[in-house]
C-alpha cells in the first residue's frame, strides 16, 4: 500500500486492523491514485533535476562566450580607437582645410589648417560661419562664390562641386565639396541616404602667383628676345638684299648669310617656345570646321615638293578611291601638323620616298607618314614627342634647321583637337612611320 495513504489511515483508524472491510476496495482505488500521483511527482522531480544540470552547463557556456565577446569588443574598440587616431592625425596633418558637416551645415569635424587658411579668429561651428568669413573679407563687394548654395547643390544632387579660383582677400582658394552617403539598412537596391558632406578648402595663392609670373615671364622674355632679334635680322637681311654688290669679300658675305640663317632659326625657336607655352596653357584658339584631309595634304605636298625633289625623294599620297568622310578640325593647325610630319620625313631621308596614307579608323581619320630615312633606335623612340627632343644627337647634327620642338607641338595640336600621335614603327637605317588622328566631322 501507498505509504502516505497508510499513514493517513493510521491517523483515522489507529491501526490498519481497524479499517472496515467494506471500504477496502475504495482504499485500493485511492491507493492506486496516490501511486499515480507519486509517479508523476517522480517524473517532474527527475526532469527538473535534468534541466537544472542542463541550465548549469548552458550557463557555463554562456559565460565563456561572453568572455570571448568581451575580449573581442575590447580589441575592436582598441582598433577603432587606433583607426580614429590615425584618421584624425591624417586630417589634422593636411595642408588644406578639412570639414565634415551634417545635413544642417553643422561642422562635425574640422582641422587646424582651416582656421589658418581662412585666418578665422573664432572657431567655426557651422559652414555658415565660413560663408560669413567670405562675405566680411569681400567688404561689401559681391562674393563671386556662394558657398552655402554650392554645398546644397552637392548634397541635393549627390554631386562633387569644385570651384577652382575663389578670391579671398589677397588669397586664392580652391573649394571642393563631396557628399557623404550611406547605404540604407533596409537594403533597397540603389537607395542611399545622404548624411552630410566633406568640404576641402585649399590655399592655391602660391600656385596662382607662380602661374602668373610664368605667363609674364614668357611674354616679357619673348618680347625682349624678339626686339633685338628683329634688329639683328633686319640689318642682316638688308645687307644681303640691298648692299650685296658692295660686299666684295665672299667670306664677309658668307658670314652675313650665317648671321641671317642663325637668326632665322633663333626666331623660329622663340616662336615655337611661345606656341608651346600657349598650347600648354590652353590659350591657343582652335576653330574647328569640316575639311578634306586629302585637300590639306595635297596643299602641303605642293609646298614641300621642291624640298623633296631637291633631295631626289618621291612624295606620294594614297587615300581610298571611294572617298573619305570630312575631318572636323582647325584647318591651319592640321596644315601645320602635316607640314611638320612630312617636313620631318623629308629632312631625315637621304633617298627613297615619303608615302602619305589617309584612312578611316573608327570615329577618326588616320594619317600615316612613312619615310625611308635614318630610322630611330628603340632607346630614342622613348624620347620622341617630348619637349626639345630630336631623336638622338646624330640626327640633331644632321638637321640644324629644326628646333626640336616640332613633334611636341604637333602632339599638343593633335591632342587639343581630340586625336593622338603615334610612332607606328621604325627600324634604324630603314625608315619610320608616324601617324596622327583627327576626328571625323559629325
Amino acid at each position, binding site marked *: 500500500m501507498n505509504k502516505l495513504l497508510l499513514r493517513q489511515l493510521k491517523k483515522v483508524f489507529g491501526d490498519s486492523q481497524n479499517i472496515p472491510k467494506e471500504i477496502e476496495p475504495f482504499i485500493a482505488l485511492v491507493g492506486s491514485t496516490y501511486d499515480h500521483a507519486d509517479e508523476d511527482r517522480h517524473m517532474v522531480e527527475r526532469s527538473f533535476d535534468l534541466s537544472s544540470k542542463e541550465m548549469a552547463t548552458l550557463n557555463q557556456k554562456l559565460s565563456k562566450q561572453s568572455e570571448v565577446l568581451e575580449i573581442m569588443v575590447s580589441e575592436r574598440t582598441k582598433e577603432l580607437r587606433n583607426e580614429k587616431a590615425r584618421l584624425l592625425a591624417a586630417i589634422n596633418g593636411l595642408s588644406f582645410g578639412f570639414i565634415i558637416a551634417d545635413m544642417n551645415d553643422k561642422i562635425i569635424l574640422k582641422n587646424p589648417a582651416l582656421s589658418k587658411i581662412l585666418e578665422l579668429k573664432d572657431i567655426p561651428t557651422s559652414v555658415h560661419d565660413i560663408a560669413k568669413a567670405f562675405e566680411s573679407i569681400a567688404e561689401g563687394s559681391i562674393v563671386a562664390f556662394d558657398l552655402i548654395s554650392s554645398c546644397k547643390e552637392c548634397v541635393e544632387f549627390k554631386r562633387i562641386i569644385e570651384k577652382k579660383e575663389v578670391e579671398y582677400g589677397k588669397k586664392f582658394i580652391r573649394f571642393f565639396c563631396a557628399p557623404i552617403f550611406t547605404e540604407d539598412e533596409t537594403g533597397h537596391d540603389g537607395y542611399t541616404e545622404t548624411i552630410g558632406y566633406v568640404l576641402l578648402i585649399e590655399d592655391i595663392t602660391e600656385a596662382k602667383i607662380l602661374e602668373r609670373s610664368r605667363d609674364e615671364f614668357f*611674354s616679357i622674355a*619673348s*618680347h625682349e628676345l*624678339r*626686339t633685338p632679334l*628683329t*634688329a639683328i635680322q*633686319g640689318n642682316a637681311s*638688308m645687307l644681303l638684299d*640691298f648692299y650685296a654688290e658692295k660686299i666684295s669679300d665672299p667670306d664677309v658675305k658668307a658670314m652675313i648669310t650665317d648671321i641671317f640663317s642663325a637668326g632665322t632659326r633663333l626666331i623660329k625657336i622663340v616662336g615655337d617656345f611661345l606656341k608651346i607655352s600657349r598650347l600648354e596653357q590652353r590659350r591657343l584658339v582652335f576653330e574647328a570646321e569640316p575639311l578634306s584631309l586629302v585637300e590639306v595634304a595635297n596643299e602641303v605636298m605642293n609646298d614641300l615638293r621642291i624640298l623633296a625633289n631637291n633631295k631626289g625623294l618621291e612624295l606620294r599620297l594614297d587615300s581610298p578611291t571611294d572617298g573619305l568622310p570630312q575631318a572636323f578640325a582647325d584647318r591651319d593647325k592640321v596644315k601645320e601638323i602635316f607640314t611638320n610630319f612630312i617636313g620631318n620625313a623629308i629632312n631625315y631621308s637621304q633617298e627613297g620616298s615619303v608615302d602619305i596614307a589617309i584612312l578611316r579608323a573608327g570615329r577618326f581619320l588616320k594619317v600615316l607618314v612613312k619615310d625611308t630615312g635614318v630610322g630611330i633606335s628603340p632607346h630614342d623612340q622613348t624620347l620622341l614627342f617630348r619637349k626639345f627632343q630630336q631623336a638622338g644627337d646624330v640626327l640633331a647634327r644632321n638637321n640644324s634647321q629644326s628646333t626640336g620642338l616640332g613633334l611636341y607641338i604637333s602632339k599638343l595640336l593633335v591632342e587639343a583637337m581630340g586625336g593622338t600621335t603615334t610612332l607606328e614603327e621604325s627600324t634604324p637605317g630603314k625608315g619610320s612611320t608616324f601617324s596622327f588622328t583627327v576626328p571625323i566631322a559629325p
Partner: protein
Amino acid sequence: MNTIFLAEDDEYIARVYTRAFRIAGYELVVVTDGEAALQSLSSIDPLPQAIILDVSLPKTSGLNVLKSLRSNSRFEHIPVAILTNSFPKETEEQFKSAGANLYMIKIEYKPGEVVEKIEQLIKDHVTTNKS
C-alpha cells in the same frame, strides 16, 4: 619728300626702318614715346603719307595714340599701321576696330617687306579715298 611717321621706342629697330625707308625713297620721322607722337603729330606739316605705331610705347600706349588720331579729322585720310613684337592684351581685331588699317608682327617681316606693305597700304588708301 615723302614722309612716313614712326613711333618706336627701340633705337635699333628705329634705325633699321629708317634705312629701309630711305632706300625706298622715303623720309622716316621717328619719335620714341606715345606723348611725343601726339605732340609731334599735332604740329606736323606737311602730313605724313602713313603713320606706323608700336603697341607698347612709353608714356602713352600705341592704342591710345591710335584712338586720339582717329578722333581728329586732320588724320582722317591717313592710313595707320600697327607694327609690334609684343603680345598686347588687345587683339588684332580690337586695333582694327579702333581704326588701324594694318596690323603686323615685326619679326615676321624683313624691313624691305615692311616698306612694301606700307607702300601698298598708301596706294590702297589713295584709291579708296578717291573712289
